[in-house]
């Protein structure tokens, strides 16, 4: 198992790396500056951060890649699906809901920088 596990684990670690890139403040550095302060972890779980950020960005978990556009055309479908990918108003409405619900604040997500503070 341990030898075979590497592929899945590597994939998962890549997710964590992506989450790190999306996070402004590293807790390990913060604790050195403020050693007595209680750590402030984000309420967004690190492996879910990339998907949560995309949720804000495009309103859905996955963006429409060039590969997907090509495949959709080959399948006889419109290149851009008639979801929030096409109807951008839905994305802006969803962002307003996220703001009103206080989710962005709870997750410490900055909508302008598109990053989590913690």
């Amino acid at each position, binding site marked *: *198992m341990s030898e*075979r*596990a*590497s*592929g*899945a*684990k590597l*994939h*998962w670690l890549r997710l964590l790396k992506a989450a790190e890139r999306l996070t402004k403040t590293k807790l390990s550095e913060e604790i050195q500056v403020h050693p007595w302060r209680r750590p402030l972890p984000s*309420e*967004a*779980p690190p*492996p*879910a951060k990339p*998907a*949560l950020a995309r*949720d804000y960005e495009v*309103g*859905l*978990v*996955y*963006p*429409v*890649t060039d*590969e*997907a556009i090509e*495949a*959709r055309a*080959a*399948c*006889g*479908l419109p290149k851009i*699906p*008639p*979801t*929030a*990918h*096409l*109807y951008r*108003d*839905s*994305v802006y*409405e*969803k962002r*307003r*809901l*996220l703001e*009103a*619900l206080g*989710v962005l604040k*709870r997750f410490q997500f900055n909508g302008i920088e598109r990053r989590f503070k913690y």
Partner: protein
Amino acid sequence: MKRYGYFLGCVMPVKMPWAEKAVMLVAKHLGLHFDYLRGTTCCIRPGVWKPLDYDAWLTLTSYNLALAEEQEVVLVDSCNGCWISHYETLQELRENSEKREMVASYLKGIGKPFPEHVEVRHFLQVLYEDVGLEKIKRKVKRKLNLRATRHIGCHARKLGDDVLPRYFDEILEALGVEIIDTPYDKMCCGLLLFLADPERSVYERVERKLNYAYEQEADFCALICSGCYDQFDRAVRILRKEAEAKGELPKACSVPVVHLAELMALAFGYKPEDFGMQHLRCTPVDRLLAKLQGC
């Protein structure tokens, strides 16, 4: 006549365009008044959002229900994850007046109507209850005569094994698919488990299921849920990469993972190229297609 609005979700339009096209073909072929529900956002993923923020899950899910209300359609999901999110939200809105008021107020804030009259249906309910098995059987031009394992997915069991799982099996059989029961039929695909335990999620879920299908010489593994397919797709890519690095033949990666709508389209007489069956697959379908052409 009911007007249906198909909820695409996140995975299908970018990873399973062949299934999207097949669903649209099949629905039209069965005479349904069936179109896309337009402007949809994520369903929103119950496994992630419900524990993080229940009210946010309820409100964001209601946004999609509000779109169905505006477009005056019955919301149809084929992804079990999307369906359970919409189904449970609708239930909560009907039973909990406090939550109703909360959701109505948030939706009003962005100029959306409260989903007062919306109905949510699983695609399997539309096929089995609204269209009917007899009509589906009548539409079958050629029996597929294939053997398959199937993965129905956890949320499809919400109404009991006698509803969606049975519909799935009976439709498969009506198309001429011989179902191979496996010890892993009720095992989760591992989609959410991946966030916490990637190894168990890949090797003890998807790999086991597909290896068993391979050992039983199944022609394919059938599913309907896009969320589950997302996990199969990810796991197969990981397994293939590992196997190729070792120069091995990846067993699990040679079993085609096929959507129910594709099988229906084929049985109804459509050609694989009518819905782009060979594009963007996680597992190759060539052998399956060769076998189909041979029958």
